[in-house]
């Protein structure tokens, strides 16, 4: 299947660390790239939050550090929009997607399915090296004249299609489109690899219904990506042509900019929104489902029990995935789309709460009759449960079209999506790190620092993003450079200050995580092969996992993935054979 487990020739620095085809190295490359991009995206968000809390203050120090963004110590409105746009784009695609799906996915899939590597190792390497120029393009777009894209991560035309429409609709938007095209190419290659590997490379005895739920969620997420990303590719190409063409896929007649009537005619911006959200909605499940996958893994290991409702969880995953592809219009209730279609989308969208509730419930029920060990990983999963609850239920307010009229594009939405695809996912990334760090790096993270990380992160993040729901209910809208512009919002400004302090403190707390992470790489205690006494296959090999994943034969699966406290033993690894009693046939004399 994978031919290179026997090729133990000496690897150069370049083939071992840089252009590696080993899924573990590639997974780590993605993970570290995500960390790198997260530094930028977090810094941008801090600039935004500082400005939003005190919009009238000047910041001479920041003005000197970021001369392109500030003028006389005040953040420029167009640069504010660029920061918002790039924060969202980079976080969704270049942090969470690549940490959670590409990073953990690449690292863990072959290990949990008992394979030496992915089905296409060379393609895997290519997919990582396609992401790198995409990252550089995104970061570089800040330095072009007129700055980075400023039309929101959703890049709606005409704002994104007409270079004269705004600073940030110039070269910055073009670079954004090109970077996204590269990202989609990379993610598609990755999805191809994941699907093929999971279907084709499972070791003996590992049927689909014996797979860890982590694998199932990655499988479903990859399929969603394959089905949904092409719509954004199509939209991005047409947007690029409208910008350069001048074609009129999304641009109607009669657009006036700076006194000039543009020559476009016949297109409609609504088409872009349909194509964009056809991807955009499944995309959030591409992010959330693997996060839930990690949560299930952690709950079994540190709860010492099988998942409650493994089979119903698998079915629920599939139903969520199917439904997620037919509900995109709930982002467009007030767009001018046919209201009857809006009614359909609302009814369909709230039906997703049903299978999603099964998943949430199974996660919580997996605490019942558990033997809970409050490791940092499990602590973050408990906080994840709270976030899924609040975010998921809050989503119902937005999915109901009548209430969405009031809440659309408000901070309620900002709070909701941060809870679901930032908080839930980051908590999962942290939990997954605390769980798999020994396997990835052969060392142990410091547990006390891990718990401190938990305690200093969770309250701030919850206050910040749940608080945004309240702001939204008060009427404050997103993409708003100056909250003081509206009199009826001024009494809410204290909330902006609270949110800034809450999120700022949580952001600063990540220093503890980074310090623990990098210090332990070098000085952490050596890790045993199975420090958590866990059952899944990745724990049957040394820590860190060696080249070729298992020094000898591949493991064979004899049982399901979560046999904790079942059949009398504290835990039974998935590759432990059952001893079958000898038959009653007489032994020949």
């Amino acid at each position, binding site marked *: 299947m994978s031919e290179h487990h026997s090729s133990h020739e000496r690897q150069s620095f370049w083939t071992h660390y840089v252009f590696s085809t080993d899924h573990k190295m590639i997974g780590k490359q993605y993970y570290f790239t995500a960390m790198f991009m997260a530094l930028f995206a977090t810094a941008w968000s801090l600039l935004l939050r500082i400005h939003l809390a005190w919009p009238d203050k000047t910041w001479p120090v920041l003005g000197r550090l970021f001369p392109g963004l500030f003028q006389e110590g005040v953040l420029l409105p167009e640069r504010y929009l660029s920061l918002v746009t790039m924060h969202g784009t980079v976080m969704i695609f270049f942090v969470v997607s690549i940490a959670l799906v590409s990073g953990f996915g690449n690292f863990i899939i072959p290990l949990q399915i008992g394979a030496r590597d992915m089905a296409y190792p060379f393609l895997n390497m290519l997919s990582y090296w396609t992401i790198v120029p995409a990252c550089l393009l995104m970061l570089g777009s800040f330095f072009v004249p007129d700055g980075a894209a400023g039309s929101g991560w959703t890049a709606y035309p005409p704002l994104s299609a007409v270079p004269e429409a705004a600073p940030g609709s110039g070269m910055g938007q073009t670079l954004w489109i090109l970077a996204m095209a590269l990202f989609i190419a990379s993610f598609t290659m990755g999805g191809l690899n994941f699907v093929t590997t999971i279907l084709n490379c499972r070791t003996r005895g590992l049927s689909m219904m014996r797979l860890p739920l982590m694998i199932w969620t990655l499988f479903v997420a990859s399929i969603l990506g394959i089905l949904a990303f092409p719509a954004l590719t199509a939209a991005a190409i047409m947007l690029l042509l409208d910008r350069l063409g001048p074609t009129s896929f999304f641009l*109607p007649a009669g657009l006036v900019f700076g006194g000039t009537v543009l020559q476009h005619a016949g297109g*409609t*911006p609504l088409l872009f929104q349909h194509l964009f959200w056809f991807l955009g909605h499944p995309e959030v499940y591409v992010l959330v489902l693997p996060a839930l996958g990690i949560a299930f893994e952690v709950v079994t290991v540190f*709860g010492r029990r099988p998942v409650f409702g493994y089979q119903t969880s698998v079915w629920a995953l599939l139903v969520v995935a199917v439904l997620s592809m037919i509900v995109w219009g709930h982002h467009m209730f007030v767009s001018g789309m046919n209201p009857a279609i809006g009614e359909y989308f609302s009814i369909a969208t709230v039906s997703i709460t049903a299978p999603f509730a099964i998943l949430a419930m199974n996660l*919580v029920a997996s605490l019942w009759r558990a033997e809970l060990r409050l490791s940092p990983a499990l602590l973050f999963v408990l906080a994840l449960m709270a976030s899924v*609850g609040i975010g998921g239920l809050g989503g119902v*307010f937005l999915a109901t079209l009548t209430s969405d009229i009031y809440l659309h594009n408000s901070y309620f939405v900002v709070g909701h999506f941060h809870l679901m695809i930032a908080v839930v996912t980051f908590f999962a990334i942290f939990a997954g790190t605390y769980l798999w760090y020994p396997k990835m790096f052969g060392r142990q993270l410091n547990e006390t620092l891990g718990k401190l990380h938990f305690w200093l992160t969770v*309250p701030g993040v919850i206050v910040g993003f749940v608080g945004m729901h309240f702001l939204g209910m008060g009427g404050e809208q997103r993409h708003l450079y100056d909250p003081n512009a509206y009199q009826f919002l001024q009494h809410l400004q204290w909330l902006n200050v609270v949110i800034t302090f809450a999120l700022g403190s949580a952001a600063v707390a990540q220093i503890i995580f980074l310090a623990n992470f990098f210090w332990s790489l070098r000085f952490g205690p050596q890790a045993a092969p199975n420090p958590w006494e866990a059952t899944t296959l990745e724990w049957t090999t040394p820590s860190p996992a060696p080249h070729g994943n298992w020094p000898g034969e591949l493991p064979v699966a004899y049982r399901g993935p979560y046999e904790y406290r079942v059949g009398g033993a504290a835990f039974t690894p998935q590759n432990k054979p059952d001893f079958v009693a000898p038959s009653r046939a007489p032994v020949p004399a």
Partner: protein
Amino acid sequence: MPELPKRNSTLEVLGVSVLLAAITLFTVIGFAHDWMPPVASRHGVGVDGVLRYLFRATGPILVIGAVAVIGFLWRYGRGRPTASPSTSHKTELLWSIVPVIGMMAVTEVGVVVKGMPVWEEIEATPPANALAIEVTGQQFEWIVRYPGPDGKFGRTSPDLVDKANPAGLDRNDPAALDDIVVRNQLHVPVDQPVYVQLRGRDVLHSFTVAALRVKQDVMPGIFTRALFVPTVVGRYEIQCTQVCGMGHYRMHGAVYVETPQQFHDWLSHKTGWLQQ
């Protein structure tokens, strides 16, 4: 060397329980607080009703979930002996049916039973006595047009738009001569339906009046619409709520809901833009 933690301290379990309880309380109390500007339109009452229903329906679900997690944490997190975790497939299936039925009931009641009547009110055909106003969203202001005494909106064209003629009125169309044009403000009489036709000149905008619970995107190339009946006299701010460029934040205006007399006085003092 195994690193699996053996026993949690009771203090830690207590701490996490308190944290989870605090998160739940913070959320529920926050949602219960009335943050919204007082409602000033007829359908707005319905919108608020849907929000109230959703809070009352989903709030308890969150609380139940929190109680379950905290309960499990307390019972199973302090090292006391625990029964085997095996469950029958039937039990697991039953506990899937419960959330499915529960969530479908709660949410579809919200959308269909509570929400549809209000949505239909918003999307209804405007009644004959509706006051027709045209609002054009453009970077970065709202051009508001009244049809004038002839009751007809005159012809406009993007080619005619300039500083002196922000609505792009066509002098050659007699119906356009009496059209009243104002910037960033609507005046409407209370208790009378208002039918706003929205159009866009450049990028997407969104016409939003929070107190009236009105929100509708402006889409260049087509007309979109907002229909509402203001019920409380007052001044309500207009926001643009779809990012439209660097002046997005200052694209505000105001809707003045007035008594019929005040409205009549205001309107009768206005002359057609082209006639000024």
